[in-house]
Structure formats: structure tokens, C-alpha cells
């Protein structure tokens, strides 16, 4: 009945196949090989430090270009993929997590990193944050939290503290802010960490721990917006007279209530891994469903599996 030939040939590739070095002879990527566009962030922006440490992470962990993807939504932070020389995607506002989930769940060979901001992750993308966390989809999410909408020039964000004067709250923010740590723990995230751009070693440490976590790993990285919220995080920066409190060494990271209490401490609070548990990932559970389903059709070609359905519909 269909008037169009339904089977079209697979798109032919017109690109010459390269003969690059075999994997075992490849050196770790250098910053030069990893850097793409020059970042468009304002001078002094905290996001520069996150980018530099991402490069360091990839170099240190010897990830090659094609082994990972860098995904983002919309916002200052979300310009990230353009600055990284690797496969990446700049998706729509708030939806980086479901997009990244699509990659994670269909391509177990890739490491998926998502970068987001407080507006992107907790406001327009709040629903996805909760559900990606509870499903424990394997990926690393770094939220560069600056407590303000920067790209659109100073509106109140979901993490802006009460009383913060913005263009949409000239008299000071009225709405109670989100606490990202509490939000993540309550949503069922299995790795919840907090760091700040002014402590590079700590940022790298958190990124490494997040990358090694089998599941949804979430880092909130305070990242100052020097243009619209200057000095927001000074009280967490020893160089500005603040205090940088590490999570106490005796904290049990698997204790949800203790983690919640730490998360609830008034600013500057604690930095480090607040919560980390082992729970099977969505990826692993789906793979198990598939193993069980495929076991019953072992040795059959795809069309033969489908034929079994059609035979029942005769």
C-alpha cells in the first residue's frame, strides 16, 4: 500500500578513513588539544576555573576525544561544550539531563558529562533534576551555581538568597531559595558533592570522585558571577576572609540524615562529598532486563524475533 520504497540504502560516508595511532600509543590529551573556542565568559568569572579543571580531569584520567561527551542546556555555564574540543552538544534550556540520559542509556561506551547552572538545573530543569537523580542514570552533572541569572543580566535565580536585589526583585528576592544539596539528597541522588571555584584542587578532587561513581553523580560548584553577584561567596573563601570548611572526616557519607544536616548548615556550610551510596543504576537495571529478554531469543536474528510476533497475529 505504501507508495514509497520503504527501504533506503544506509547513508554512505564520503569521508576518507583516517589511520590514527592505535589506542595504546596515544598520549593523554593536553590542554591545547582539548581547548576549542576561547570562552565567552566575562573576565574573572568562576566558570573559567571549572573549565580548566575539566581539562585537567580529562588529561589526568587519560580520556581520549571520542570517549566522552560534554552536554549542556542554556545559560552562561552551558556555553561549556563550545570550549571543549570533543564530541558535545548544546541543548535547550533546562533539558540537558534527559538529553544526556539518552546518550548514557544507549551508549555505555561513552562517559557523559553535563554542565549546567542554577537556573537551568533547578528552575526550568527542576523536574529533570529530581527524576534523573532518582533513576540513578549514570553520568556526572556539574552545576555552576552563581545564585543569579547571568546570561540574561541579573534576574533572581532559584538559589538567590532572600533579599537579593535583582532586576526582577528590585526590593530584594522574596522567594525561599532551593538548597541544591538537600534537593539532591531528597530526590534520591547517589552522589552529592559541593565545591567552589576558588579551590581548584578541591574541584578536581570532586570531579574525579564523581567520575568514578557508578551512577548519577552531582557536584554543586559555587562559581562567582563577578558582573551581577560580586562577592556572593566571599565568606567561603579564606583569601577574602571567609572559611572553607571541609566535610568532617568522621562524616558517614552513606548516612542520609547526617548528610541532610550537613547540607542544612548556614552558608558557607561544608565542602566535599556529603552523600554517596551504592544503588544499582538505571543503566544496569535496563541491561539486566535486556539480558533476560534476549536470553529467550538466543541465536535468532532480529527479523526472526519479530516474525514470532507476526506469527501470533495471523
Amino acid at each position, binding site marked *: 500500500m505504501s507508495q*514509497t520504497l520503504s527501504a533506503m540504502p544506509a547513508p554512505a560516508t564520503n569521508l576518507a578513513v583516517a589511520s590514527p595511532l592505535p589506542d595504546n600509543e596515544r598520549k593523554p590529551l593536553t590542554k591545547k588539544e582539548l581547548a576549542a573556542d576561547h570562552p565567552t565568559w566575562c573576565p574573572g568569572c568562576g566558570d573559567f576555573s571549572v573549565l580548566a579543571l575539566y581539562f585537567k580531569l580529562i588529561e589526568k584520567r587519560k580520556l581520549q576525544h571520542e570517549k566522552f561527551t560534554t552536554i549542556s542546556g542554556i545559560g552562561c555555564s552551558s556555553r561549556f561544550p563550545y570550549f571543549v574540543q570533543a564530541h558535545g552538544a548544546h541543548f535547550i534550556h533546562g533539558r540537558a539531563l534527559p538529553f544526556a540520559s539518552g546518550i548514557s542509556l544507549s551508549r555505555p561506551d561513552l562517559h557523559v558529562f553535563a554542565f549546567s547552572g542554577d537556573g537551568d538545573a533547578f528552575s526550568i530543569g527542576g523536574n529533570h533534576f529530581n527524576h534523573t537523580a532518582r533513576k540513578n542514570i549514570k553520568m556526572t552533572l556539574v552545576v555552576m551555581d552563581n545564585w543569579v541569572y547571568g546570561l540574561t543580566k541579573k534576574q533572581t535565580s532559584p538559589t538567590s538568597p532572600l533579599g537579593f536585589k535583582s532586576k526582577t526583585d528590585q526590593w530584594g528576592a522574596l522567594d525561599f531559595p532551593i538548597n541544591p544539596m538537600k534537593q539532591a539528597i531528597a530526590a534520591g541522588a547517589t552522589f552529592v558533592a559541593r565545591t567552589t571555584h576558588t579551590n581548584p584542587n578541591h574541584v578536581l578532587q570532586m570531579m574525579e570522585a564523581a567520575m568514578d561513581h557508578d551512577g548519577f553523580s552531582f557536584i554543586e560548584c559555587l562559581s562567582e558571577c563577578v558582573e551581577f553577584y560580586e562577592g556572593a561567596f566571599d565568606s567561603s573563601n579564606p583569601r577574602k576572609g571567609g572559611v572553607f570548611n571541609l566535610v568532617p572526616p568522621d562524616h558517614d557519607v552513606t548516612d542520609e540524615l547526617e548528610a541532610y544536616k550537613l547540607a542544612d548548615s548556614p552558608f558557607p556550610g561544608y565542602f566535599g562529598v556529603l552523600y554517596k551510596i551504592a544503588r544499582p543504576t538505571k543503566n544496569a537495571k535496563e541491561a539486566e532486563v535486556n539480558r533476560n529478554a534476549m536470553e529467550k531469543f538466543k541465536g535468532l536474528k532480529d527479523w526472526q524475533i519479530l516474525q514470532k510476533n507476526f506469527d501470533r497475529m495471523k
Partner: protein
Amino acid sequence: MSDSTTTTQPTGGVPRVPRVSKVSEAVIRIAGNSQDGIQAIGGFLARLAGRSEQEVMTFMTIPSTISGGPSIFQVRIGSGEVLSAGDEADILLAFYQHSYEDHIGSLKKGGIVLYDSDHVELKPEWQKDYHHVGIPISSLTVEAIGGTAKDKGKNIYALGLVARMFDLNVPKLEALIHERFGGKDQSIVKNALSAFHAGYSYCVGDLIETFRFAESEKREGAQVVMNGNEALGYGLIAAGVRFGAGYPITPWSDIMELLRRELPKYGGSFIQCEDEIASISMAIGASYAGRVAVTGSSGPGISLKTEALGWAVMAEVPLVICDIQRGGPSTGMPTNVEQSDLNIACFGSHGDAPRVVIAPANVEDCFYTAIEAVNIARQYNVPVIILSDQAIATRIEAFPEPDLEKLCQDITPDLTPVANYKPYDLSAPDGIVPRVVPGTRIANGKYPIATGLEHDEMGHPTGSPKLHQQMTTKRRKKLQALAATLPTPKIYGPPEGNVLLVGWGSTQGPIREAVDRARAAGDSISGLTLRHLNPLPDGLENIFSGFHHVLVVELNDEGLYGYGQLAGLLRARFTDPRIRGVNKSDGLTWKVRDILERVRTTLATLKKT
């Protein structure tokens, strides 16, 4: 135009002596409540027809309530071609008073009402027009299989009655009952067979005439029987789709349930997401990562997906979106049919966002359209919307079994390293660049970014007016290249005449039947079904020029200016004043006689002006 049909029907008043009439087709309407399992009777009859080399088409209504409520299932079985589910029923099987009163109007004069005399009190004023046969179906079912479960099994009892009336093939029906209820508790199969035989043994033949279907022409090869959602779902699997994401909404949900159940057998996954936006985003993510993925929805869900759809257009990532249309706007009529999503399918999303829209014309076409959609998506790196609707989604048809060995395709991404890659190469022929997906090593160390920002050839953002113009042109040219490959649709009937009825999607059957009827009555009328709606195929203006009137028959509103959504599109495309709309939006499929009546009144109005 005449309403006469060429088929033989069981008519002729009330026979004194029971007799057997040979019929070429019959329309049976079963009316009850949604929990009575009347869909099961319809399903058995449809499947039997498929196995008996007969054609079959069904039509059902389901209440959009959580449980219960009046429901009907109409099945039309024929030895010849069956194009629609039938305007009028030959037989009405009524389980309740409301079934009887609400549906007697759909029975043709002289038709037979079989009613459950335990629940229905007949109306004397209707007795002269219809042959009434009361059977205490409920109590006889209880008698046959024991009476603990309330009213369970009376559907199968009724199936036995129908089997007797139409001299249906009992061993085949028994086999179907075994297939349906086997695997469960053996007592269930036993009860079902008891109910069936009790119904079959009831002496309907003493009360009224019975019927026998004329022999069908022998067909080569087997037929398969399924509904449109099943055909679409299995078509996607045949096409090689191994990832999808969705959110439950009627009438799309069946497809996601099917894919969730089936894809793991092939190592694939279908993910139920937190919302419609997450679904399309996740599908796009998976598509970006290599293999064409699918999402879908109905009604409000489609509205929610349009922003992300625009990203797939901009980033040139392939995707298949199933839109199983229902009545709108807003929550609208979730379990009714409407063809009112054409505009959002073709244009929904901000900016200039060209995408492909294909509407399958029947259940069989759903299967092949799914494969076609996947192949267009991956060849042109563009989202493709399959515009189905509630009527096709839920109706059952029999069609020749597809050659799965030949049709099933493997679309695993090729990760072989490449020398260099420009994802948005402006020098590519027709703007089409084969995709290189994540996981592929690129020897020159320059990697692509997929993006929704206007971009340069590597995917990096640009504010260049020239590049925006060039990239916009590139995205458009791909679809123009596709349009040039699309076949000109075939006219149903002669290529010249007075009236051309143009339709799309599920209205193909009723339109063709209307053409058959009108031509039999001497009218000069032909039909045309468009499957490719965006882009439109070439050659339509030549077809239109063969007719005095081009009437576009659609299940949507005539709009502010008197044109339905396709009529508006065709008017904009061809600026042809002969194009006019024939529309309705009552949430029901077109009846053949309504199409003919509306054509008549439209022509009469034109004559006056």
C-alpha cells in the same frame, strides 16, 4: 448521488421460515460497557476474518473514563475489498438498554437486533423497522459456565451466537480462543469454550435467517491482523529503532507499551520519562548518540514537544515522532478522532523549522510508514513526524504479511575513525552531510558540536547574518531535495472529471468508498490520498487541473476562512480557487453517506453563487 450499494445485505423484512442467505459482507455492531470484553469479540471476529482470507475493518469507541461506561465495537467483514468500517450495521448486538436505545439508529432498516433480554426491554415502536431477537444472554451464560463471576463470559457466549448466525468456522474460532486464553488457568479456556458452545448451540436459526459469507478470492501468502498502533510499533522495530522515550497519553500509550515490552528482546530500550519534554529530549539525545530514536504523543503532549523538535531541526539530528491525533485543542476529546494536528506537525515550533510529515492511510501503511520515516530521518538528518490518528490507531485490519527478512534493517552507527568532519558543511550536495556520531575518532582533532544556536560549519555559534541565511537555506534545501524524490500520489478513479476528493490519513477508506458509490450512481468523481504532507510531492497541480472541483475532506474545523488544515496548506501552495474544504469535527470518523451528502451540498452552494 445515490446512496445505493453494490453489496448484498441481510435485509428483506422478517422471514417466516429460517433460511440461509449468502452475503458478500456484513457489518456487526456490538454495544455494551467497556468492561464487558466486547473488544474481545470484535478481536476474535477480525482475526478469524484474517485467517479466512476475508477483509476486515473495525471501529470502536471507548469512554475516556477510568473504568466502565458505554462502549461499542463494530466489525465489518467482507469477501471483497473493505474500505471502511461501514456506515450502518446489519446486526446490532445490544447488551443493555442504553446499548439498544443509543445504537438502534446505526442499524439499517430491516436489520436485526440481538438483545440480552435479561437487561433490555424492547420498544414496540421500533419493532416494525427492525427484526428483534431477544435472548437471555446473561442468564444463559451463567447457566453454561456457572454464575459466580458477574457477567463474565457473556461476550464469548455472544461470539457463539454470532458464529452460528454467520456459519463461521468453529475450529478456527476454537483455536483463537485457545490462543487467547491458553497459558492462563486451564479452567479459563474450558469456561470460554463452554460459553462459546452454549451460544453456538442456541437455536438462533429457528428465529431468523442465518448467513454464509461468499467465498473470498484465494490469496497468496498469509494475512496478519492488528491495529494501527501495533503496526506502527512493529514497523519501528523492523526499521531498526532500538531506543525510544515517552510519557503516557491516550491514544499514543499503546505504542510505548509495545516498545517497552518488545525492544529489550533486541537489546534496545524504551524509557518512560517524567514528562513529554524529557521524552523528546531523551530520544534526541539517543539519536544524537547514533541510532534514530523515537518519541511520540497525542494532543497536549505534541504541543509540549515542539521546542525540542526545533532543536533537532537546527542541530540536524534525526528523530521520529509519532503523533496519534485525538480531538483538540487542550485536553479536548482524548478517545475521539480528529485530524487537527496537521498545522502543528508542519509548522509547530518557533522560527523557520522545516521537518518531514507523513500520514499513514491505513493500518498496513502504518507499518511501512514507520520504516520510511526512519530512513528519511537518517538520510536527511531531520525530524520526521508520523501523523496517525485515534481511528487508525485502534482499528483492526488484516493485511498481507510483510516480508520481515527483507524489510528488517540494522542501523547501528558506524564508529570507524574519519579524517575530518564538518557537521554543517555548506558545500555538501543538497545540504545533506552524513553524520559522524560520538565515539568516532576524528583524526584532525577537530570535533563537532551539535547545537541549537545558529552556527558555523563546525557547530560553533555565530552571529553572522550571512551564515544564518546560508544555514537556513541549507536546512530548507534538504527537504526540497527530498520532495523531488517523492512519488506523485495515484488517483483513485479516472484522472479527469468533475470532482476530486482529496484526503489524508485515516479518511482514505471512506473517501474511496464514497468514490465507488458515487461512480456506481453515474457521478464523475475521483479520490486522492496524500501521505507526504510536508514536503508535498510534485505533480499535484497537474492532478488538480483534471477536475472542476477539488474538495478536501478532513476531520477538522473549516477554520476562519472556510478551509480545513490541509485545504489551507494546498491553497497556500497552489493558490488554486478550485480547492475547497469539506470538514467536520464531531470526533467521529467520516461516514460514506455523509461525505457524499456534503459533496452534494457544497456543489449545490457553488452553483447558486
